[in-house]
C-alpha cells in the first residue's frame, strides 16, 4: 500500500504535535476511510515511537530506581510497624492528590525561562593513579582505561568502577593509592577491592588503596560519601577525614566532612562505628539511626537520633530535607547544581523547609517547590540564585 506523501508527512508532524488544525482534519479523514489506513497509521506511529523510546530508554537509571524502591518497600523493624504502614499509605495518597492538584495550578513561566545555565549534576569524576596519571570519568559508559602499571580499569554502565575486577590486583606487593575527585555538580560510585561500596557526592574526593594490604583498611575522605562497608573482622575499616576518624567493622553510614564547612556529620544506618575527633579527646561509638555532629569551631560533639533517610537519600537520587534551614538547603543544592546564592532579605536564611524531590529534576522545578510552601521567591541570573521575601 502506498501512502500519499502528504499523509505520511502529516503523521510524522502529528507525532511531534506540530500539525495544524486543517492538516489534522485531513489526516483524520484519511484514517477513517478504511481499516487498512487505520492499521497503517498505527504501525507507523509504533515505529516512530520505538525510535524515540530507544533514546529515552538509556536515560533511565534502572538500578538506582530499584534500590530506592527496595528501600521504600522494606518492612520497618519497629514496634510501630502497623501504624507507620497505614500512615505511609495515607500519606502517599494524600501526597499524590496534592501533587496532582498543585500541578494544575502552577504558573511555570517565571523561573523556567531563565534557568538554562544551571544544570543538575551528572556522573563525573577525575581518577588519579599512583603514577600521577589522571583519567577523566563519566563521559561514556563501559569505557576501559589502561594505566601505566598495566592495570585495567573499566567504567561500569552505572557510572562506577569496581576494583574487585581490577586486573593485576594479585601482583601488587605494596600499597598503591588511587584518588577519585568528584567536582561540583558531579557524583560517582566505587566498589573497593574488599567489596565495600562507596557513593561520592559533589565536591568530594576519596583516596584509597587499589588493593588493601596489611592489618587494616584505611581510606581518606574529603567531602561527602555514603559507605556500605564489607564485613571483615580481621581488618577494621578506617575512614580518615581532616578532623575526624571513623573505625568500622561492617556497616552502612554517611559522612559529610567538607573542609569548607564547620560541621562534620556522620549518620549511621546500620552496623557500628567508633569515632575519634581532632579536638575532643573522648571517642564515641555510634549506634544505628544515630548521628554525630562535630563542630570544628566550638570543638564539641552532639549525638542525636535522626531519620537517616534525609541524610542518605542523595545516593538514591533524591533531595530530602526535613525541617532544615534555607541556608543549609541552598548550600547543598548549590554543590549539586553548581550555583551561588545571594540573599536580598537576610532573615530568609533561617527559614525552615521540608522537601523531597528527585535530584535529577531541573533546578527551576526544585525551587518552585520551595516557593510554594512559604513566603520566599527565587530569581535565577546566570549561575546565581537570588532569594527574596515574597509579597
Amino acid at each position, binding site marked *: 500500500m502506498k501512502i500519499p506523501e502528504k499523509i505520511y508527512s502529516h503523521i510524522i508532524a502529528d507525532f511531534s504535535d506540530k500539525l495544524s488544525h486543517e492538516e489534522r482534519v485531513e489526516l483524520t479523514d484519511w484514517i477513517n476511510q478504511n481499516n487498512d489506513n487505520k492499521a497503517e497509521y498505527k504501525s507507523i506511529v509504533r515505529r516512530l515511537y520505538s*525510535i524515540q523510546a530507544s533514546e529515552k530508554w538509556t536515560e533511565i537509571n534502572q538500578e538506582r530506581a530499584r534500590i530506592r524502591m527496595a528501600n521504600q518497600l522494606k518492612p520497618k523493624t519497629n514496634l510501630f510497624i502497623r501504624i507507620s504502614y497505614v500512615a505511609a499509605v495515607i500519606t502517599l495518597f494524600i501526597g499524590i492528590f496534592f501533587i496532582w492538584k498543585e500541578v494544575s495550578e502552577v504558573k511555570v513561566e517565571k523561573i523556567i525561562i531563565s534557568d538554562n545555565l544551571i544544570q543538575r549534576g551528572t556522573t563525573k569524576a577525575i581518577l588519579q593513579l599512583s603514577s600521577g596519571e589522571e583519567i577523566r570519568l563519566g563521559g561514556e559508559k563501559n569505557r576501559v582505561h589502561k594505566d601505566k602499571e598495566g592495570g585495567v580499569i573499566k567504567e561500569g554502565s552505572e557510572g562506577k568502577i569496581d576494583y574487585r575486577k581490577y586486573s593485576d590486583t594479585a601482583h601488587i606487593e605494596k600499597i598503591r593509592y588511587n584518588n577519585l575527585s568528584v567536582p561540583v555538580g558531579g557524583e560517582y560510585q566505587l566498589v573497593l577491592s574488599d567489596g565495600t561500596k562507596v557513593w561520592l557526592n559533589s565536591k568530594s574526593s576519596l583516596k584509597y588503596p587499589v588493593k588493601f594490604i596489611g592489618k587494616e583498611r584505611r581510606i581518606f575522605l574529603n567531602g561527602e560519601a555514603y559507605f556500605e562497608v564489607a564485613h571483615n573482622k580481621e581488618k577494621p575499616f578506617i575512614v580518615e577525614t581532616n578532623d575526624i576518624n571513623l573505625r568500622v567493622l561492617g556497616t552502612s553510614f554517611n559522612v559529610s566532612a567538607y573542609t569548607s564547612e564547620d560541621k562534620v556529620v556522620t549518620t549511621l544506618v546500620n552496623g557500628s562505628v567508633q569515632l575519634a575527633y581532632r579536638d575532643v579527646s573522648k571517642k564515641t561509638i555510634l549506634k544505628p539511626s544515630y548521628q554525630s555532629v562535630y563542630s570544628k569551631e566550638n570543638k564539641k560533639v552532639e549525638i542525636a537520633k535522626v531519620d537517616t533517610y534525609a541524610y542518605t537519600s542523595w545516593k538514591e537520587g533524591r533531595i530530602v530535607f526535613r525541617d532544615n534551614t534555607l541556608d543549609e538547603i541552598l548550600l547543598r543544592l548549590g554543590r549539586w547544581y553548581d550555583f551561588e546564592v545571594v540573599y536580598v532579605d537576610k532573615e530568609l536564611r533561617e527559614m525552615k523547609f521540608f522537601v523531597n524531590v*528527585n535530584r535529577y529534576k531541573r533546578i527551576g522545578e526544585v525551587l518552585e517547590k520551595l516557593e510554594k510552601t512559604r513566603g520566599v521567591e527565587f530569581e535565577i541570573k546566570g549561575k546565581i540564585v537570588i532569594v527574596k521575601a515574597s509579597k
Partner: protein
Amino acid sequence: MMIGTEEILRVLNEDNNKGFNLLFDRFYRPLVVFADSFIKDIPSSEDIVQDIFYSFIKLKSYKKLEGRTLDTYLFRAVKNACLNKVKKKDSVDNKLDLLKIEAVEEEAKVLNEKLISDIKAEIDNLPDRTRLVVKSILLNGKRYKEVAQENNISVNTVKTLLRNGVGALRAKFTDVSEMFLYLFLKKM
C-alpha cells in the same frame, strides 16, 4: 525471552520480594518510556511509575486485578496518572490522539532491553545521511526546512530519506498482527 505476566503474578503471590523484582525488570522501563510520551521528562516519568509500583505492592493490588491482565492494569494506571498531570487544553478525547496513544501503548508493552538495542543497532546501520535525517527530525525535533538547509539538500530529499529510514527500521516484527499486515500488504 520475556517472562510471562502469569508467571510474575504467581511469584508475587508467593514471595513479595522476588515478585517485585520480576515485575520491576519486566515493566519499569517500558512504563517509564510510556509515561514519557505524555510527560516528556524522564525523571518526572520515573517518579510517576515509582509511585504506582509502590501502591501496587503495598496495597497488594495484584490480588485484585479483576480479570484484567497485569500489563493492561499497569499501563492504564500510568496513563491515567499522566493524563491527570498533563491536562492539556486541546483535550485528549479526539479520535486521532486516542488512536496515537493506543499505538504508543501497544509498542511500549513489547519493549525490552534486547529490542531496544536491536533498534539502536538498526539506526546505527542506516546510511549516514539517512541516519542524520532520522535523528534530526525524530529525536531532535527539527523541521524539514532546517535539516534541508543544514545539509545542503532539498526538502524533498529530506522527506524521502526520512521515509526510507523509518521504513528500514522494521527488522523485527514486534507482534503477530503486524507481521500478517505486512504479508497482506506485500500481496497487494
